[in-house]
């Protein structure tokens, strides 16, 4: 019997090639997308699961409330980790991590026998690192690593990159021309995915800073702790306030703030954590939800096609059903027959889907910045997953048609008295409307995301971001010659301005608490952000001074000669008038007089971060030409280029830089590109929305095409009669198309409020956002409508052009 079902299924597929193709293409696209999404979700859920005792490892973060401003950091001041371990025995181990070039700068140049390699995952860690994160050692003893200074542990693949076939153990490499390191161990590559990737680990002494080790506010490092198995973490959370009281409260009281601890389970960091200063961009649990919904949408749309075409074509199958019943088939066996048939089609579609998935995998990975792979031998779960998916889809798509078709009463069908698929027409209409509602919602979503990103990229940021090259200064010797370098650069007619700053718009600024003068002449601590710039920075960026003046080389010689603020700072400090007479205190002189930093000028509000957040109060300190008091390894050189000859100018600067800093390759970005990076997540979203809306529209149109062709077939006689009675081709085309257009119109009515609600929610992520206008809805409606008209008109015109005599004879 099963063989009989198979035969019928295949012969039906072959006989109705048009419908079969539509069904298989639709289903295979649906399956491809769902499979890829399944792989993506599987990969996202796999982070940090490979470590031994991974459930017992937590990362420590902090929540600061400084002067009412609340910030969350994924890392904590240096002394917290060691002191917690000393006080609480339930902390079995702790380890701290810090980029070798500062907290987030886990990038360094490694040199071996004259060959240079960039390592962008190099951290300094406490010697307990491998006790918290158990790794498999190829060479070296886990007990003794990270103890001796000047030793380094490498991963297998990085060691291979540096040493090739040579044995790495015992070899010496140089890091950033500064540290000579002995390879003391090589570990296996991390076997799974992790939020904290590393290729090289050096001992803590590289990150050790005498003045920072005992600072309880600021100078953060990543800190992980390990608890006993099944330890109730709430117990520890409850203990933290007493620790805070004992060790930290004094510091925070001085800053007019408080601090709370945040414990993040290792396994959930990748998907749920988006705190300030994450070492790498994390995933987002929202993506998992969005993707799951999209996968379900796509499958539903593809299944709807199958159901629609299967039931529409019931006339062809009805006779078979009737006859099988006459000759002794139960309804239940017919139901099974149709479900099996649908599963067979889904399996065929799955085979096609595997091909498509292999083909589009690179694009998909690129889109998601992920490295999902299809490997059936390594991951048998993929085969079972796909098989399961195919059977599930076969079931989903086949059940309704199976029940529908098997319900035919034999006495009607054997007489040729078939409803010709008209029964169930309303359900088909509803299904088409659902498909198009989903498609239109996605089109609207795509357009709104596009508009918002366009708005964000073209919004007046309060400064001119175009044609600015930003070079990182890596060498203090270079830093000391800045004035000379500036002059040299400015001698090139294609360079119009050069300035320095410690900050790069597009990257979050540092926070501080300032003692701002109040109207009564006293000082209140207030949390705000700060920037450090030189005399030329404001002009270079074309920022506007709306009150007072910019820093001036002649008048301002040192940091304490004054500062600039933005408008938001005035609002935050509550200054109503005479802003230029106000200031901040920064200590007292030997005679007890308050040292005051005066406000020299007010800069018109400008965006340093993305438009997601409101403009923050910012105080701007001076970097004088001589006697820079701030310690910082990474000052940046801002170079404004003329619009013309940009390529040549960049080449010139690169050449010059080889001479200026022969030890370090030039590291530069363009400011506008760097700012545009703030919208990377949204760019990704646009890409996804565009692809998925294209796919849903495509699948929906496949269904429409099938139904249009079916309707044209069904109405052959009507068309014939109408033509005999004088209807023109356009009359007929309109007659046939109008029905479908009506459904798409109804789909608009459903999609519009849905999309409006969803996109309004999404736009709330932006402090500065577009207003959703009616235009985008109308445009989406028109797009969907045109696509639908285009899809059905071919069939309609074909039907309308047919010879009426043929049509009537046929009937």
């Amino acid at each position, binding site marked *: 019997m099963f063989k009989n079902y198979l035969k019928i299924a295949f012969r039906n597929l072959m006989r109705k090639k048009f419908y079969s193709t539509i069904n298989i293409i639709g289903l295979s696209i649906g399956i491809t997308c769902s499979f890829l999404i399944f792989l993506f979700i599987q990969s996202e859920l796999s982070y940090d699961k490979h470590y031994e005792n991974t459930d017992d490892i937590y990362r420590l973060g902090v929540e600061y409330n400084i002067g009412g401003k609340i910030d969350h950091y994924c890392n904590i001041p240096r002394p917290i980790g060691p002191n917690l371990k000393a006080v609480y025995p339930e902390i079995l181990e702790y380890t701290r991590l810090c980029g070798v070039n500062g907290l987030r700068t886990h990038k360094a140049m490694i040199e071996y026998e004259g060959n240079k390699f960039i390592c962008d995952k190099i951290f300094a860690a406490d010697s307990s690192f491998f006790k918290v994160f158990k790794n498999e050692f190829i060479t070296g003893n886990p007990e003794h690593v990270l103890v001796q200074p000047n030793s380094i542990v490498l991963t297998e693949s990085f060691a291979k990159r540096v040493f090739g076939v040579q044995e790495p153990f015992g070899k010496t490499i140089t890091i950033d021309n500064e540290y000579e390191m002995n390879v003391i161990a090589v570990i296996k590559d991390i076997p799974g995915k992790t939020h904290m990737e590393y290729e090289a680990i050096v001992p803590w002494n590289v990150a050790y800073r005498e003045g920072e080790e005992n600072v309880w506010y600021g100078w953060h490092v990543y800190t992980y702790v390990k608890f006993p198995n099944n330890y109730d973490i709430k117990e520890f959370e409850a203990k933290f306030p007493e620790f805070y009281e004992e060790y930290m409260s004094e510091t925070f009281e001085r800053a007019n703030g408080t601090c709370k601890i945040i414990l993040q389970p290792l396994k959930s960091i990748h998907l749920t954590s988006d705190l300030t200063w994450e070492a790498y961009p994390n995933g987002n649990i929202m993506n998992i939800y969005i993707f799951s919904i999209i996968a379900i949408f796509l499958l539903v749309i593809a299944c709807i096609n199958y159901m629609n075409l299967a039931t529409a074509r019931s006339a062809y199958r009805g006779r078979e059903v009737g006859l099988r019943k006459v000759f002794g088939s139960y309804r239940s066996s017919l139901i099974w027959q149709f479900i099996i048939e649908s599963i067979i089609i889904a399996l065929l579609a799955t085979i096609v889907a595997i091909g498509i998935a292999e083909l589009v995998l690179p694009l998909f990975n690129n889109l998601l910045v992920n490295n999902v792979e299809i490997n059936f031998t390594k991951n048998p779960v993929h085969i079972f997953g796909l098989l399961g998916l195919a059977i599930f889809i076969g079931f989903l798509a086949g059940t309704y048609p199976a029940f529908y078709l098997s319900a035919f009463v034999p006495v009607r069908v*054997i*007489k040729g008295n078939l409803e010709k698929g008209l029964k169930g027409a309303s359900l088909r209409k509803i299904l088409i409307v659902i498909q198009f509602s989903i498609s239109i919602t996605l089109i609207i979503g795509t357009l709104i995301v596009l508009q918002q990103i366009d708005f964000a990229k073209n919004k007046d940021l309060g400064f001119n971001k175009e044609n600015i090259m930003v070079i990182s200064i890596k060498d203090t010797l270079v830093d000391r010659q800045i004035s000379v370098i500036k002059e040299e650069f400015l001698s090139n007619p294609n360079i119009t301005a050069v300035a320095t700053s410690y900050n790069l718009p597009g990257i979050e600024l540092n926070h501080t608490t300032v003692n701002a003068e109040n109207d009564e002449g006293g000082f209140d601590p207030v949390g705000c952000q700060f920037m450090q710039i030189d005399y030329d920075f404001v002009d270079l960026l074309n920022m506007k001074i709306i009150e007072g003046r910019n820093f001036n080389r002649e008048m301002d010689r040192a940091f304490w000669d004054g500062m600039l603020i933005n408008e938001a700072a005035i609002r935050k400090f509550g200054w109503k008038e005479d802003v230029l007479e106000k200031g901040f205190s920064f200590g007292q002189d030997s005679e007890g007089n308050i040292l005051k930093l005066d406000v020299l000028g007010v800069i018109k509000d400008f965006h340093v971060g993305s438009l997601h957040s409101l403009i923050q109060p910012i105080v701007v300190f001076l970097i004088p030409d001589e006697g820079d008091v701030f310690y910082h390894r990474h000052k940046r050189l801002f170079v404004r280029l003329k619009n013309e000859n940009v390529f040549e100018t960049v080449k010139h600067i690169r050449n010059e830089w080889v001479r200026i800093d022969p030890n370090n390759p030039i590291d530069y970005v363009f400011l506008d590109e760097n700012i545009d990076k703030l919208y990377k997540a949204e760019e990704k979203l646009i890409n996804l929305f565009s692809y998925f809306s294209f796919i849903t529209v495509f699948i929906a149109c496949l269904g429409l095409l099938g139904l249009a062709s079916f309707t044209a077939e069904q109405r052959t006689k009507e068309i014939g009669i109408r033509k005999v009675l004088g209807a023109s081709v356009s009359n007929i085309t309109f007659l046939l198309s109008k029905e479908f257009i009506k459904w798409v119109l109804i789909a608009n009515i459903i999609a519009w409020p849905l999309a409006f609600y969803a996109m309004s929610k999404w736009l709330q992520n932006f402090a500065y956002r577009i207003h959703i206008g009616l235009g985008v809805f109308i445009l989406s409606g028109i797009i969907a409508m045109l696509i639908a008209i285009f899809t059905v008109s071919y069939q309609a015109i074909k039907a309308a052009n047919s010879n009426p005599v043929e049509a009537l004879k046929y009937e």
Partner: protein
Amino acid sequence: MIKTNNLTKIYRTDEVETVALNNVNVEVAKGEFVAVMGPSGCGKSTLLNVIGLLDNPTSGEYYFNTQEVSKYTERMRTNMRKSNIGFIFQSFNLIDELTVYENVELPLLYIKMSSAERKKRVNEVLDRMKIAHRAKHFPQQLSGGQQQRVAVARAVITKPKLMLADEPTGNLDSANGEEVMDLLTQLNEEGTTIIMVTHSPSHAEYAHRTIQLFDGHIVTENIKKEFHL
């Protein structure tokens, strides 16, 4: 073999009620060949459907082999039908996607039978119907006469006790029509009870008895041939 008491079948739609059979009393003996005639819409096919257990009557009693079957569920009717009744239709009603062989084999799939036995039985019947050489063809590759021979083969494959033929010659030319009638006669002579709906008086001549239907009533019954049990 068949006995009906006041068999009534009413079709109802929202607005119209059509009485297709009105208190019909029929009795057909085992081995009898009965023709049913009457104008279009008189209830011939409805009668055949009820007798063939494809449909239940609205009221009345129906005894099939002394069993009252008028209230049978679909499943019970299916069970009764598949081992006892064969069908032949005017429009042949072969399944286009199946070959001649597979069409004929179809009813056997619904009664448990080994595949060797099925094969043997199908080949025998195809030989007998003189279409064995067409076994691998699809219905649309055959002439009307050949298609109806396949349909007859399919109807007899389960060796049913009762054969119901609904205008079996309606779509055939006279030569092919005669051929089918000869086949039915032959089957009847071998003991199969046949009830045949027809418009053709000459084909009705092949039957032992003709029932005339009009507006759902039996108007006359003519015994043309002697029939002995």
